[in-house]
């Protein structure tokens, strides 16, 4: 099962390496990892999606806690939370299919952010399943390139 961990860490150089090294060394699989600054410039937040059963998750969490620069780890998988991912798709687009693609883009509330003679770049934000659904819909036209940011997440309500 996939778990989403929200990990608060020191905004120091090398923290990402420590976390990544820990996953590699203990043999845990990272599905996605995003990291960025927070409202406090001294602190960064990582959103890590890990694939594994309960015992693996427990070990991941405990081992992460041992890193000196990690403050807080929340497993937000089962918490009411908002999560978003951003993706960019470069799709083949001859003039005759352009209209059809634009309709799909509308349905998914995505945006076209670049138009070339034979291609479009589409930006979409949403949860994982929405992005996967858009990917499926665009595949018929020919996806030239795709990039996904990985998930960022936050618990709903006042609790942090």
């Amino acid at each position, binding site marked *: 099962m996939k778990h989403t961990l929200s990990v608060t860490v020191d905004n120091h150089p090398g923290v990402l390496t420590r976390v990544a090294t820990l996953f590699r060394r203990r043999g845990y699989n990272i599905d996605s990892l995003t990291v960025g600054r927070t409202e406090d410039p001294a602190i960064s937040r990582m959103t890590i999606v890990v694939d594994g059963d309960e015992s693996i998750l427990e070990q991941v969490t405990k081992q992460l806690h041992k890193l*000196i620069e990690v403050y807080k780890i929340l497993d937000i998988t089962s918490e009411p939370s908002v999560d978003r991912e951003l993706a960019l798709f470069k799709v083949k687009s001859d003039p005759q299919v352009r209209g059809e693609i634009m309709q799909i883009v509308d349905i998914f509330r995505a945006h076209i952010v670049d138009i070339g003679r034979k291609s479009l770049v589409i930006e979409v934000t949403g949860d994982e399943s929405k992005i996967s659904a858009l990917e499926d819909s665009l595949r018929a036209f020919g996806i030239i390139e795709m990039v996904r940011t990985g998930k960022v997440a936050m618990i709903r309500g006042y609790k942090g």
Partner: protein
Amino acid sequence: MRLTGTDIFIKGLKNEGVDVIFGYPGGGVLPIYDGLYASDIRHILVRHEQGAAHAADAYARVTGKVGVCLATSGPGATNLVTGIANAYMDSIPMVAFTGQVTIPLIGRDAFQEADITGITLPITKHNYLVKNIRDLPRIIKEAFFIARTNRPGPVVVDLPKDVMAQEIDFLDDEIEMSLRGYRILKSANTGQVLAAAKAIDEAARPLIYAGGGVISSEASSELTELAGKMQIPVVTTLMGLGCFPGTNPLFLGMLGMHGTGAANYAVSECDLLIAIGVRFDDRVTGNLNTFAPHARVIHIDIDAAEIGKNVGPHIPIVGDVKQVLSEVIPRLKERGGQTSWHEQLRSWKENYPLGYESREDCLMPQFVIEKIYEITEGKAIITTEVGQHQMWTAQYYKFDKPRTFVTSGGLGTMGFGLPAAVGAQVACPEATVIDIAGDGSIQMNIQEMCTAVEQKLPIIICIMNNRYLGMVRQWQELFYDRRYSFVDIEHQPDFVKLAEAYGAVGMRVAKPSEVEPALRKAMEIKDRPTMIDFRVEREANVYPMVPPGGSLNAMLGEGM
């Protein structure tokens, strides 16, 4: 006050109570060595950086203080790596300082540059690269604090040469640590403590399985009290030897791959296993599916990540072992008297004693170790290398006190024993320090003979010389059809002459009757090391033995 990075470094060491460091100079640490020249911190010059790390590690093991080593950048730092990994696996408090090239050169593959913080990431509790001299006082304080608190471990501090030479106005204020994510664990969850006390009160066949965590927590007296009050037998891991008196009747010996029959049968039959400061290592448990099959498990450890890592306990307790035990003990109803469990243990002890074929015509290594025990009256500090001699030492030397057995447990580092003896003897000048070695291992850090001679350390090195890499040979005999692949090391130096060449005393012993006089003579020498080449039986094996991945109650060996 204008201070250089080096001044701040030396000041920091003094604030931490450091009086001795083990090191080796080089280009990257020239500013630091210039400071040490005029300092009253004792510096022990080793002959290879690995020796510095092991000596600092052993210094920490025998004193309980943080051991300190120092090496130059690049190869100096990478030579420490085995020693750092060794301290990490055995949870030993150590701070390793390394030189680094100047900050503008970092990342440019400069001469003697190595990314030591990157290299040591998975084998340190934490590490630092000091990029700003203003951070130096705080980092030194944090490094020592992290090394010695909670589950101890090594910390690396990488010191660029220009930072150490730089000068700043230093305000001698209280240095503030900045460790938001690091909390000190002491007391445990009271509910869990009560649950443990209840389980102990109710158990019919309880057993204590104690490890190195008891020693790092200084909890030997609490452990002895617990066992005595409830008449609970005790087995220990290799790292735990000495945490409970080896001569106490409740002691069953070491458990695991080369554990005693009584210890391993007790684990297999107990109904409550009280695991204290241990990590259920594979050399201890054998096959996890058949480990302690009838037991409920209480697991007490300071490191939450150890709980449930290998064995899921029924009652997990995260906390400092000493604190937890002192909370559990008063809640127990005293239990005297002998039960059928004690009767059973006694019969295992009688029926499966440790044993070896005693021979007049040749020297048995176990006999030599028994003699060392007898002549030192069990009061020596013993270091070992890694291999058969290490297991025989664990079996035949009865350690009554913590911090007297210094051995490489987790990493199994050949070449540990001699530099460890240097560190131990520096820490305890009055103690008898003996390195029980093999002829393979001793050659891995033999250069530290020079350090020992220079420092006039009366270390006694007892080489169990069977002209084989004995433990590997034993496995090849048992599991690879006696195909002795590259384990015959008859080509070796004359250890007596070698000792003499270093300026130490060398002796050779080939007969049982010569053992005692040689040891007695060695113990009289107080101003230099003695190396004794014991020419032991070539193909003696360590028994009992649980084959790797086997069940603890299926041991190989005479009468098992």
